[in-house]
């Protein structure tokens, strides 16, 4: 099955001759007997490309994807339209196959993309500096916690239950590593972060405070008040933000937030059953030399020509090793490219138009469903409602190839009968009305 190697019999003879060994096996002489596998790997035999394609297509065919149902499922990843030019660009070998740009003279394409990505994220978040990407949303939250630890030397992290459950989970897992405790603060009766409870949890040993905008239920948080409360003892204010609503929401940077991270899937990336996408990481100027991961900087070459390089590498693991600001090496460059191309495709006015369309449809959907509201206040992109008979709703919706949303009970015992409904530019009035009709039929069934 050597379609990917090119050693002919003649090559083999000549190469062994030059090396000065009899056979390829001789090259493995230094591997002690005891650790040699000494048998074939127990794996299915290699197959022709067409057979592998059939097998993979068969597996793919057993998944119900977003073009086969009308989905209101969100909870962190969303069914947005990805413009065709993104795949056209990402499939170019010039973007798809290079390594991290260690030789800048032959990587100006990748480095300028990083620089433009950093600019776009800074504009969205209202914070002056951004790195070139981290893995995804939840681990970006964990990375912010680590930065706060290095910055404040304190040991407590305060996180609102408004944060995505996966963000809170990743934060706890990483914090166990870097020796910090995570304290969660509750939501109010109307599904917003409880400012007072947050203020109460913050003390002199609090390194960072975490809120999410909009929060997991879709509530538009009072970010200004929350940040003020959180920073009362000098903690780092971290906001996990959904990038598209930032088209019309006040940028976290303008509300006292120190670090704004978030999930980048909605910016021109695939759902891909949860990854790969990218995380973004923007911060106040003073954190520039503490940022995790790659950063591209503008400079000039010997002829005075404009160019870009990886900069401030002394923060990174390949230079500072055990004193690095983070252990990340390979990150999400190709997915970040999709992000900046998508933001340029939307453009200055397009982002506003898309965010406003989502805002209005979210509002329309909540009205149309006419179910009891868990977060009656302002919402964007998502909202939570109580459903008298969730199983019935799912069953009837499924019958009409509708996926009604996320069962909140999986992560929030307090919302056992809660349904999280997500809205994108792909969910038109017609789709929403069909969901509303199903909801109505369930309501009547329960009422009858």
């Amino acid at each position, binding site marked *: 099955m050597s379609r990917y190697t090119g050693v002919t019999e003649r090559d083999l003879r000549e190469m062994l001759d030059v090396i000065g060994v009899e056979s390829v096996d001789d090259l493995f002489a230094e591997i002690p007997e005891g650790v040699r596998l000494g048998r074939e790997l127990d794996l299915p035999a290699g197959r022709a490309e067409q057979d592998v394609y059939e097998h993979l297509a068969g597996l793919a065919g057993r998944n119900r994807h977003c073009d086969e149902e009308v989905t209101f499922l969100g909870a962190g990843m969303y069914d947005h339209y990805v413009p065709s030019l993104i795949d056209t660009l990402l499939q170019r*070998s010039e973007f798809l196959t290079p390594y991290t740009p260690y030789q800048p003279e032959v990587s100006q394409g990748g480095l300028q993309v990083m620089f433009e990505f950093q*600019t776009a994220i800074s504009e969205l978040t209202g914070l002056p500096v951004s790195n070139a990407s981290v893995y995804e949303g939840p681990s970006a939250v964990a990375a912010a916690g680590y930065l706060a630890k290095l910055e404040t030397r304190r040991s407590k992290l305060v996180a609102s239950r408004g944060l995505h459950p996966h963000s809170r989970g990743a934060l706890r897992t990483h914090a166990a*590593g870097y020796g910090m405790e995570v304290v969660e603060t509750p939501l109010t009766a109307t599904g917003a972060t409880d400012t007072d409870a947050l203020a109460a949890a913050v003390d002199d040993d609090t390194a960072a405070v975490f809120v999410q905008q909009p929060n997991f239920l879709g509530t538009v948080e009072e970010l200004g008040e929350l940040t003020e409360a959180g920073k009362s003892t000098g903690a780092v204010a971290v906001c996990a933000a959904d990038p598209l609503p930032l088209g019309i929401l006040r940028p976290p940077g303008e509300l006292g937030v120190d670090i704004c991270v978030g999930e980048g899937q909605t910016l021109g990336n695939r759902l891909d*059953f949860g990854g790969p996408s990218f995380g973004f990481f923007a911060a106040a100027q003073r954190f520039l030399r503490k940022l995790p991961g790659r950063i591209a900087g503008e400079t000039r070459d010997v002829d005075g020509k404009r160019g870009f*390089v990886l900069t401030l590498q002394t923060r990174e693991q390949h230079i500072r090793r055990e004193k690095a600001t983070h252990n990340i090496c390979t990150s999400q460059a190709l997915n970040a490219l999709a992000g900046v191309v998508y933001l340029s495709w939307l453009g200055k006015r397009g982002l506003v138009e898309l965010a406003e369309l989502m805002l209005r449809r979210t509002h329309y959907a909540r009205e149309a469903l006419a179910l009891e509201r868990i977060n009656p206040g302002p919402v964007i992109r998502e909202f939570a409602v109580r459903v008298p008979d969730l199983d019935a709703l799912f069953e009837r919706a499924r019958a009409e190839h509708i996926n009604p949303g996320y069962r909140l009970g999986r992560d929030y015992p307090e919302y056992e009968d809660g349904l999280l409904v997500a809205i994108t530019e792909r969910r038109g009035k017609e789709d929403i009305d069909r969901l509303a009709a199903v909801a109505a039929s369930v309501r009547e069934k329960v009422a009858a």
Partner: protein
Amino acid sequence: MTTDLDPRAGEETLTIFERSREGRRAFVAPDCDVPELPVEELLPKEGVRERPAELPEVSEPELVRHYTTLSSKNFHLDEGFYPLGSCTMKHNPKLHERVAALPGHARLHPLQDPEYAQGALELMWRLQGALAEVAGLPHVSLQPSAGSHGELAGLLLTRAYHEAQGEPRTKVLTPDTAHGTNPATVTMAGYQVVKVGTAADGGVDLDDLRAKADADVACLMLTNPNTLGLFDSNIEEIERIVHEAGATLYYDGANLNAVMGIARSGDMGFDIVHFNLHKTFTQPHGGGGPGAGPIAVSDRIEPFLPTPQVVRRPGGNGSEPLFDLDYDRPRSIGRLRGFHGNFGVFVRTYAYIRSLGGDGLKEASQVAVLNANYLKALLAEEGIAEYLPIAFDRTCMHEFVVSGRGAKERLGVKTLDIAKRMLDHGVHPPTVYFPLLVDEALMIEPTETETKERLDHFACVVRAILEEAREDPEIARGAPYTTPVRRLDEAGAAKRPIVRWRPEDEND
């Protein structure tokens, strides 16, 4: 308007922001089919932007031209030889992009009910099995997002394991030749790094190891073959020492391409191994990601694996077994990230494993090692060896390291200059200045997908550069000459960092 010879000179490098012109657009919003209520009615006043984000305004043709032209400035794997040591720049099969793009994969929501995602869950379950077989360790978690993330997972598992034994332990041993992510991970996992020396033959200094492997050591992180490209034949002794000290043995799988189907980390006594799917298993490097760093662990580590785990439940009434995500893992270290890992990367890796099968994976390693030893032999010839002596004159595995000490001392030409001159010959330089152990290091990993002609040509390029440097070292010191930009002021970029474009920049 300059009229010199370089066609690109006329057009100063512009960012997409500087190509923006008010009123241009590539995006056309779908019609608003719901009441267009004013934003103020739906959002709190102070929660709304005062001015829109300064994103560029460009038409589709200009957007496509901007990024297509940018891409053509990148050296890439489908263009020429890319022997970056420890990065395994092997060919990315094009089938993998086709199957990754199938809507059943690319358009599948991560929270879709398991019974409507059986194809994806089965693929993950089968990949776990295949990786377990390659690693020789039975339990696999696909969740870590890259090698470093896998390393962190490994040390968090080590911490959980030791705490469960009631001994928290504080130190982790890493060889001085270890990749930078190893020590960085140790610190991030709350441990203290203790370096272990390298013996004359390039392997772990056993005496130094015995001295440092005390009861406070939680784990030894090792990669075998190591970053010098040498297989540490004392591995069984190393395993004994570490396990006797009660520590776990962590295998950095970045160099797996040398030993697939030949030697397995599980059989070397390792407890935890991470794979770099974007190295060994052809996930394209994408300019710095995405990748994936799944881990395989021994029985004693399994209980602590991240949540959720992909499992196969026996089917009810004899029906198909249900593949599912298991969240009920009381002793698990919890989540490392959102959802369940970089599924798109798993699709490509799984397609690769099903394309090659066991014998194909083994053949890949055999040819990778053959190519490395052949290129090493070419560079050991007269006219090269004096200037770029091999660091350790032993049979190498999939990569080898030469030292630019000879060129520096005899020709006054540093490894950096040699690397930059290679750019003018249409090849990508090897990894430079790593591992730190070797002075003016050049770490060369050809991989199995290169032909003999490409290896011969690379040796010719090296020979030509050294010959030229003997006559006129200035040429290499000023290289490169034919690339889109020449040497860049990296110091200046760090001193006065400019990390974003600013509107007002336009007129300075």
